[in-house]
């Protein structure tokens, strides 16, 4: 599965764009079109994109985007190190731009050529209430107990996170 390209999103200020529809399928062309710079998996965290390549300009992740991400995924970037890590992760993912994908159809899953198995409409599972409720911290008469509705994250101004101190 392709990594989500946050780079273009940050530039344009909108959500990730859908892959453009391409008519010609060449599933293995991408692998053979190796980028000019050597690419080893292990040290890629620290490696900067190859110089001279057409890559999106390195841009700081804005506070608004960080806040949006925190609300959506309930992650806490906590401190500048966390944000730096995110920054580096985006740069790393942006290396995908080096690959020429003209005429290549996007791949969603390595299972795409497999047959989707169809199950017969029979009842074969269920009736394990006791087992399932063992996982529950709190239960009331065989119901799971949850807080009342979604508790929204406090607005940016009210949150005591690193983001408060940034621009």
């Amino acid at each position, binding site marked *: *599965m392709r990594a989500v390209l946050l780079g273009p999103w940050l530039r344009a200020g909108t959500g990730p764009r859908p892959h453009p529809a391409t008519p010609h399928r060449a599933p293995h062309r991408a692998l053979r079109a190796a980028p000019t710079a050597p690419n080893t998996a292990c040290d890629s965290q620290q490696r900067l994109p190859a110089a001279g390549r057409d890559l999106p300009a390195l841009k700081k992740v804005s506070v608004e985007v960080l806040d949006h991400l925190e609300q959506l*995924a309930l992650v806490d970037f906590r401190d500048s190190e966390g944000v730096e890590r995110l920054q580096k992760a985006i740069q790393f993912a942006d290396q995908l731009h080096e690959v020429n994908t003209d005429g290549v159809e996007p791949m969603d899953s390595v299972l*795409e050529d497999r047959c989707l198995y*169809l199950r017969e*409409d029979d009842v*074969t599972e*269920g009736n394990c209430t006791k087992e*399932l409720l063992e996982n529950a911290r709190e239960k009331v008469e*065989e119901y799971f107990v949850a807080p009342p*509705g979604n508790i929204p994250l406090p607005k940016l101004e009210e949150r005591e996170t690193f983001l408060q101190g940034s621009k």
Partner: protein
Amino acid sequence: MAAAVAMAARGCGGVWRRARQRGAGQPGPGPGPFPRGQRAVACNARGGAVPAGKSGLVPWVPVVGLEIHAQISSNSKLFSGSQVQFAAPPNSLVSFFDASLPGTLPVLNRRCVEAAVMTGLALNCSINKKSLFDRKHYFYADLPAGYQITQQRVPIAVNGSLSYSLCIDNKMSQMVTKTVRIKQIQLEQDSGKSLHDDTRSQTLVDLNRAGVGLMEVVMEPDMCCGEEAAAAVRELQLILQTLGSSQAVMAEGQLRVDANVSVHHPGEPYGVRTEVKNINSIRFLAKAIDYEIQRQIEELENGGTILNETRAFDSKLGCTVPMRDKEGKQDYRFMPEPNLPPLILYDAKSLPANMNHQQVINIDWIHERLPDLPSVKRKKLVEQYGILPEHSFTLLNEDGLAEFFESVVKQTQMKPKKVIGWILKDLLSYLKQHSLTVKESPVSSFLLADLLNLLEKKEISSPAAKQVMAIKAGNQKVLNKLIGLVQKKTEGRSNPVLVKQLLEKKLSE
């Protein structure tokens, strides 16, 4: 919930007050949300534009689109083998996959795919021979995985249409046919059920419904008022019930409708739309939509703006109120479902030679076996029996009534055109008065046919026949009248209690 009610009281009261102020000088306000002097949304077959508002200048065009979720009628769930059943002990119909325990994977239920294909064909859709599954992410206690498996990019069916009929006037004498375009039909998972306990500040979660297969039917915004939406949903309900792909009982949550409503001036771009949820019956659907249209018109005419928000319909107060949890635009972060390859369907031409039959779904095979849809059934009734189109609508609208009618026609010499009157006027009204279904009718088709035969042979008069039907249908007053007649005949010497017992015994035969 208490907060919502308080808000509703304030919100609806506000609207009423404003409307009342402007309507001052007209006869007193009516019981509904609109004072009697003010016209309700008059959307009709002729135009669809609401006549000029209070300002008397430019008319408003309401736009209504519907998102309908129909629970698939199947034994087991969409991606797991747990049973699908209404009202079972909490969390008893839940597998490890439904509870989103790690290490579990979705396995697609063949029957659910067939149901979606049937529905797509019945709604004149193109069936996508290759469709894909996606994940739609949001956080809620009744969605244990944190995402719902749906079909956002390439759904199973697209570009269909649904034809429905409306009465132009209130007398059921002139019907007009309209069409609404179906954008797409997609397969998706249902979520569990949340029971809000505000006193203890907690939510109780039952996952029995989590993972049940749904067909989401997305309609284009081709409708303009509550009446049209109600008629379209009613027709869809009948189609689903005829196909058997869903039992579509709104009261049991098997058919859920959300309405998207906006208004604009003719020639101008569409206005901001609101989404109205929590509509539990077709009657409330019409009310909710008409209220929301009126609310938006009044808001805009007062110089206000419409927020792109989700509102809930409060059936007790008859108005819509903003929903607590749905503030702000949601970003669902759609991504392909990595655990499911594409769903491939075949037709007669593309059928693979050496595949296991059980693994193949043939669209043409399903198409050949579709039952007669309601529109076809109505046409046949009109052609075969010479009844009016409006009659055929009423016959199909009541469960079992068409079969009852045909059964009576078979057993009587009376012409179908005359029989229909007895069915629709006498029988149906009695059933409605006593809140009975056709199946519960105390008058069987055999009895009615017998009665009508007597009438045809002129052995009894029409009023007498009506009285007999009334008695049979349990009309107490007529029974008492009979007792009175017996008393008269026996000159007061009969025991009224015994007479009543004897009569009731006779009637139950």
